């Protein structure tokens, strides 16, 4: 028996020796997001956006420094006098992967299709009335109202054009397992767990520095972490990686055993405060809660220092950022406010905090904040924490069932508008109470007289006027505290030493085309 077992174990290294050789200089990139469809109309997850960024081109791109640059467009949109018509000149000489020509008709086909059947189609259809072809290489967007962040919205990779010829029979339904776009890579193979991208030889722009990308999906953090550690994959994207694994990789990178890249901050972790029902319908209590959060401790304990404390709703790199909009941690100030509201004198305020039970960091946040409050303000306030599956929590949020929910907001495109409107916009209100709109979806039910008009105006003006308006909006929101920003999150990627330094673009995607294998360091891939 023992001999049989020993021979079985000995067979394992032999099987290991049967490893398939890596095809040329192609690279293996791993992520947790399963990819069920590569049709931009279906895309809503980060993993899909990352693959699409290799297969397609947007009209505009945001570089690593946050600057907007035309890609399939040749210049920024030219706006009509009333700001309701935007003309976009398009690049000539671009071919789709099926060899057909990219032109204004193709771009209009793709945008109309996205607006009609896109999961995120509302992003465009809320702002764009129609898409017109006005010349072979020029389109015109008729807007519902002036919208200054238009080029940034058009940098969303889900708006990448697809070949009308290839999608003719799929104009009103998704085409999941193929992608025919204009990007630097063409899709050579599609499987739910595996995709292969090969360089498109007739690409109009800069050719990829590698011979292709093999994308694999691994279902859990341990597997992802182990795959990079064992050298099985070349690059790892952080979505789905648990925080302790991220920290271990971060340490390896700091010690020079791995390469690390951090993308632009795109996600805000926040707590929604239900402001139309007791007890948080009292502004003084919401202000007290705002001063009760020790972000520095939370970030250190919960995210192991891998996230930055955040005191605003807009990521700091974007226009309108106001890093100190929300008050800092101030237990003495909070105590005064709790006293004003009638607590702390033998009366403790109990606040129910719900966290998403399927996200480990969320639970840790809830427990840490609970402990921190018990330590610092235990005689005034206590948290009653409850875990709830994310999908269930989201469905309860707009019903006003959750006094406080900890969740995160990730912008679909990098503009302040995409961080304020989805949380604050309100189409029907009664005083400070929002009855219908994004504020209800976000779980705060809060608005203020004139706020909606200010939000609308903030996406119609530009330059310093816009900055000032966005700062003013944030200050106004902070004073009422319907949402409590906690930390800022960004995409990260880790690669072995056998791969060149990964870099992110301004939209938070790893620039796959820049990656290349470094022959000299091929032996140094196992950290």
């Amino acid at each position, binding site marked *: *028996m023992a001999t*049989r077992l020993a021979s079985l174990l000995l067979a*394992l*290294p032999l*099987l*290991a020796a*049967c*490893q*398939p050789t890596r095809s040329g200089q*192609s690279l*293996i990139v791993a992520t947790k997001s*399963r990819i*069920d*469809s590569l049709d931009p109309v*279906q895309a809503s997850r980060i993993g899909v956006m990352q693959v699409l960024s290799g297969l397609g081109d947007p009209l505009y791109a945001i570089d690593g420094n946050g600057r907007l640059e035309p890609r399939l467009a040749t210049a920024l949109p030219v706006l009509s006098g009333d700001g309701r018509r935007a003309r976009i000149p398009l690049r000539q000489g671009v071919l789709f992967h099926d060899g057909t020509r990219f032109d204004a008709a193709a771009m209009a086909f793709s945008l109309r299709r996205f607006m009609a*059947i896109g*999961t*995120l*189609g*509302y992003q465009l*259809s*809320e702002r764009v009335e129609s898409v017109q072809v006005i010349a072979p290489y020029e389109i015109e967007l008729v807007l519902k109202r002036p919208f200054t962040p238009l080029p940034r919205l058009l940098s969303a990779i889900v708006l990448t054009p697809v070949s009308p010829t290839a999608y003719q029979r799929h104009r009103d*339904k*998704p085409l*999941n397992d193929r992608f025919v776009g204009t990007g630097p890579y063409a899709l050579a*193979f599609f499987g*739910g*767990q*595996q995709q*292969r991208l090969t360089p498109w030889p007739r690409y109009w722009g800069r050719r990829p520095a590698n011979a292709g990308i*093999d994308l694999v*999906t*691994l*279902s*859990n953090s*341990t*597997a992802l972490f*182990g*795959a990079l*550690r*064992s*050298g*099985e*994959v070349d690059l790892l994207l952080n979505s789905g990686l648990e925080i302790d694994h991220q920290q271990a990789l971060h340490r390896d990178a700091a010690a020079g055993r791995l390469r690390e890249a951090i993308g632009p901050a795109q996600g805000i972790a926040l707590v929604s405060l239900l402001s139309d029902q007791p007890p948080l319908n009292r502004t003084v209590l919401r202000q007290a809660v705002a001063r009760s959060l020790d972000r520095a401790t939370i970030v250190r304990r919960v995210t192991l220092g891998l996230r930055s404390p955040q005191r605003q709703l807009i990521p700091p790199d974007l226009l309108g950022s106001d890093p100190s909009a929300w008050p800092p941690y101030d237990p003495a100030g909070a105590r005064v406010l709790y006293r004003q509201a009638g607590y702390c004198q033998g009366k403790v305020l109990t606040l129910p905090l719900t966290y998403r039970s399927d996200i480990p960091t969320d639970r840790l946040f809830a427990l840490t904040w609970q402990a921190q409050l018990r330590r610092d303000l235990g005689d005034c306030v206590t948290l009653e924490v409850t875990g709830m*599956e*994310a*999908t*269930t929590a*989201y*469905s309860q*949020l707009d019903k006003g069932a959750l006094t406080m929910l900890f*969740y995160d*907001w990730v912008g*679909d495109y990098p503009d302040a508008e995409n961080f304020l409107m*989805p949380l604050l916009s309100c*189409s029907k209100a009664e005083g400070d109470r929002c009855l*219908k709109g994004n504020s*209800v*979806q976000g*779980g705060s039910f809060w608005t203020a007289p004139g706020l909606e008009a200010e939000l609308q105006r903030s996406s119609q003006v530009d330059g310093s006027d816009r900055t000032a308006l966005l700062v003013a909006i944030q200050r106004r929101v902070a004073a009422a505290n319907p949402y409590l920003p906690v930390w800022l999150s960004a995409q990260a990627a880790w690669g072995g030493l056998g791969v060149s330094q990964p870099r992110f673009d301004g939209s938070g995607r790893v620039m796959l085309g820049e990656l290349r294998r470094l022959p000299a360091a091929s032996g140094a891939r196992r950290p």
Partner: protein
Amino acid sequence: MSRRSDLARYLASRLALAPLMLWLIASLVFLLLRVAPGDPIDALLGTRAPEAARAALRAQLGLDRPLSEQYGRFLGHLLQGDLGQSLTNGEPVTRLIQDSLPASLELGVVALLLAAMVGLAVGFSGIGRPEGRLDLAGRLYGIGTYALPPFWAAMVVQLVFAVWLGWLPVGGRFPATLMPPQGTGFYLLDSLRAGDWQQLGGSLRHLVLPAATLGLLLSGIFTNALRLNLRRALGSDYVEAARSRGLSERRVVLHHALPNALLPVLTITGITVASLIGGALLIEVTFSWPGIAFRLQEAIAQRDYPLVQGIVVVVAALVVLVSVLVDLVVALLDPRIRF
């Protein structure tokens, strides 16, 4: 009435009841999914999107219709063998099941073979000296492997053989650098049919860790079942009679006791096969094995109603089929069985 006609009647009644059972299961799943909080729109969009866009998507997916209409449509399609389309990507559910089920079955069959071989070998090894060292080790093995938490065992195996030693892949079903074999979806079979040794090697390398882990965890059941039944058989009158006729102990064990001891093991095998048809969730998740259980878990999280309903109905149908087959085989092998 003859035994054969009894058996035929029994099988006919089981098969006749199957559609009723499947209808009950399908209806229950349909109802439970709708009663559970959250809907596909929440899963797809989270807190994103204005109410109008959410309503439009709800209408696009047919979720705005009355529940009775949705149920009627679901049953109507089910009767025609149409399991509907996934809400997350619009693919036919049948195709998604066809993609995932072979992965689970391949893993299950290899693991079961391994479990049977190892489990029966260990169970049989201590029979020479009851309560001896080997028997004790077999008992401990049986209890230990059965008691091990699958996710913990899988993670340890993954860490040791994939991460530390780097002998085998961490997860997945096929090397990223190769094209998966085309055909039935059973990669071992497909690569053998294609005569592609590189594909076969790649499939095997990915299969070893999950199959070995699952196999070893299941082997304890076989070990214990064989040990107990063999000991009971060895103490029975017919074995005593065989010994008294002067037959060798080897012949007594192999020809008289073992076949009788294996009959209950066959029933256990049937039950294990039935449970493996639905996939081994923890093993599939740990090793990123794209099987049916993993797919079902994702579908539940995404509230992909048609996909959950489709998987449950198909798995239930297969379980019914397997249990009927096992009953048939046991009845054919054991003349004592009455219906």
